[in-house]
């Protein structure tokens, strides 16, 4: 890539350099919404700029404008002082901007190497794919960046974090000057996050400007040089990270102070609701645990450790090969979701789109799906009672919507998640399994979900929380189980849990 000379010059102090990317007065409107309103920022070679804001603050619109997906109504984008006019994503790429989106933009059926050269396949004049060169160049980039990836592996067989490395390698393959990462850690485990930061630091040394978008404050303080906060499509502040405290950042983002992110009320712990003995399946090996009423039990584990597998097994969604699952004393037999629901346990899936929402269905229909029996008289639906009940939940959880009949697809992630939680609360459970309940949700909504989890436990529900976010785990759980490669490798109480010991158990 021939960037090493720039690296030695630039990495030491980027403050002296001219901005690699400068955005001035960017505005963009969609029908009915002003998504971006006069936003400006700049980022220099070797600088890591954190872009913060709640959902709807305009971050994704800004990124999409920079990626050439949307066209701004007004304002200017300059790269190395040259004004740009992107009409499509290819223009942005050619100009040296590479966006690593949160939803990874790789072709699952293609090999790692092919994915890195999707734009041109290194094709020459005859438009022929140069397979040998593709693999050679990919390997070369991996060697330089120190990635342990096989160029011939299919992307669909990789873990999320490995896929992210492919995305970053892709930026390197394109000689990108500016890499924009949209919530890159949302599906990474702590170890993988650490690894990613190593990669970012290496990129930084290569003189690449990085725009880092995240909700996770502790990450910002670890990696970012500068913080830019947006709110409601408008620029709020630009400051060096060193001048921020977590509270000041949250205040800039939310516009108000949030006192406690993790409420933990005093509650009485009751009888054992969930009892699991020697649970084994394709990916799980002899898992045993129990959860009592009024207790929040966190499950931690790295990617692929088996959290989601446990969650899906104990509600009867995935088949098991061995073991006994009892809910409030009753055996989960036959092993099905029909039975588990009857016993009073339900799962909120980590994957809202494919396992939770009926995207074109109305809010009401999504919310009442589990509790249909309550609105059934002699097999007939009582639409009035249904609507009334749904209205109650909308009020109770302050779900923001235009009307109950609108398709749920148009709601924000946080509000969608509240609807899905309402689905189970309306039914009335004894135990609920929450798999990554705050994935892709902004800070304000997160706090509300946390409060809700606390409230559920206080009402006497047994809550099982699957999470990969350490602060969430430590802040909410009464007890913590740790999984590693499908086995149980640790159990901690709220009092004796430390981040180090948990991580230690997770890699055991």
């Amino acid at each position, binding site marked *: 890539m021939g960037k090493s000379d720039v690296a030695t010059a630039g990495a030491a102090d980027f403050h002296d350099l001219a901005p690699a990317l400068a955005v001035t007065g960017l505005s963009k409107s969609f029908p009915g919404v002003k998504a971006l309103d006069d936003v400006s920022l700049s980022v220099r070679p070797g600088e890591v700029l954190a872009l913060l804001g709640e959902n709807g603050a305009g971050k994704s619109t800004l990124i999409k404008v920079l990626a050439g997906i949307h066209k701004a109504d007004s304002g200017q984008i300059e790269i190395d002082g040259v004004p740009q006019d992107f009409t499509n994503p290819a223009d942005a790429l050619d100009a040296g901007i590479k966006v690593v989106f949160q939803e990874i933009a790789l*072709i699952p059926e293609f090999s790692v190497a092919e994915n890195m050269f*999707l*734009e041109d396949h290194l094709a020459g004049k005859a*438009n*022929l794919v140069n397979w040998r060169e593709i693999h050679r160049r990919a390997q070369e980039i991996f060697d330089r960046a120190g990635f342990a990836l096989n160029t011939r*592996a299919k992307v669909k*067989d*990789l873990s999320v974090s490995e896929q992210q490395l492919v995305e970053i390698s892709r930026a390197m393959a394109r000689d990108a000057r500016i890499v924009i990462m949209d919530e890159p850690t949302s599906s990474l485990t702590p170890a993988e996050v650490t690894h990613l930061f190593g990669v970012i630091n290496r990129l930084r040394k290569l003189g690449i400007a990085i725009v880092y978008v995240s909700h996770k404050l502790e990450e910002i303080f670890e990696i970012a040089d500068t913080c830019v906060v947006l709110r409601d499509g408008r620029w709020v502040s630009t400051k060096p990270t060193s001048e921020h405290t977590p509270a000041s950042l949250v205040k800039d983002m939310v516009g108000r102070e949030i006192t406690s992110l993790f409420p933990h009320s005093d509650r009485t712990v009751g009888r054992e609701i969930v009892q699991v003995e020697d649970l084994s399946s394709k990916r799980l090996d002899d898992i045993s645990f129990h959860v009592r009423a009024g207790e929040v039990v966190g499950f931690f584990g790295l990617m692929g450790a088996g959290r989601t597998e446990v969650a899906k097994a104990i509600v009867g969604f995935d088949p098991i090969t061995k073991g006994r699952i009892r809910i409030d004393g009753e055996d989960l037999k036959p092993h099905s979701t029909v039975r588990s629901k009857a016993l009073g346990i339900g799962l909120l899936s980590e994957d809202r789109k494919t396992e939770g929402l009926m995207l074109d269905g109305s809010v009401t229909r999504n919310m009442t799906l589990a509790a249909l029996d309550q609105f059934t008289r002699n097999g007939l639906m009582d639409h009035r009672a249904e609507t009334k009940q749904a209205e109650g939940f909308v009020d109770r959880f302050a779900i923001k919507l235009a009307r109950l009949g609108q398709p749920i697809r148009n709601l924000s992630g946080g509000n969608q998640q509240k609807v899905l939680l309402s689905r189970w609360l309306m039914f009335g459970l004894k135990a609920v399994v929450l798999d990554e309940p705050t994935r892709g949700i902004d800070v304000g909504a997160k706090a509300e979900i946390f409060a809700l989890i606390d409230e559920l436990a206080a009402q006497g529900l047994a809550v099982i929380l699957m999470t990969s976010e350490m602060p969430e785990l430590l802040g909410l759980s009464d007890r913590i189980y740790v999984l590693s490669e499908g086995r149980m490798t640790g159990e901690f109480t709220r009092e004796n849990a430390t981040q180090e010991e948990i991580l230690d158990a997770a890699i055991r």
Partner: protein
Amino acid sequence: MPLSANPALPQNMLSRTLRKVAGQSEIALFVSLVLIVIVFSSLSEYFLTTRNLTNVLGQASIILLIATGVAVALIGGEVDISVGSLVAAVALPLVEIMNATGSLSLGILGALVLGLMIGAINGYLSAYLRINSLIVTLGMLFLIRGGVYLWTNKRAQADTAYLDSFFAIGNGKAFGIMPIPAIIAGVIVLMVMFIMHKTRFGRRIYAAGGSAEVARMVGYDVRRIKFICFLISSTLATIAGILLASRLGAAVHTSGQGYEFQAIAAVVLGGVSLAGGRGNILGAALGVLILAYLSNGLGMINAPTEWQLVITGIVIVAAVSLDSYKKSKE
């Protein structure tokens, strides 16, 4: 961990080359094909003759071309079921122009123009107006067939130019052995294989079919890619229509009915996914040959039509369920 997936262990040469061009499932298909040949060879003394084996290649050439086009469309994430009617339609300009001018090239040109026009309509409606392609091409299936009936007044249009070149492309044999339609189809299928695997555009078809969103983000013009997929599928069906017209010596208005189903069945049997982005042309071709030799063999042993239909149905269900069983094991 897939990361540690080994770069091929040292094995004998044959299997390594085989692996290079074919995946697991293509090898399985090839083995099934061989099994069919062995079984029927033991049941009929006439099956395992050079003449019969090459005959079938000629007979299969028409479905092979159609299936290849259908496979390209499926890999591109779209489906084209108008091909059966298209086969009948393109023969009309071919034969009429040939009869009027005495020129095979002009006739072929006419056929290609009509074929491309139909492909462009399919492509425009599906890719640009974003109407579900199954519906578009289902509608076109009716429309084209009706158009053919109106145009011909339901009479077959005979070739009265009697060009030897036209006779040869569907009926001739190279070196007295290999049917020329089989050679034509074989060369075209190889070309498509090459395009799909070795050219930038081919890879873009896979990308557009497998993950249209991603392809769009990478900057591919997905609509254009899909549009061209329809052009490819109708071009291949046009060539099939030309070969068929030559074999029949006429533009027969009823020809090609049900070919779309035969082609889709063969292609799916060959491992091409209905969901787009998966499968390859080699597999599709093997799927066609399996069904062709199966049908030929059943004919050789005088199996009645009804049994042929039942057996073909069972073979398809068995193949596809085996495939989905394998996927569920992954």
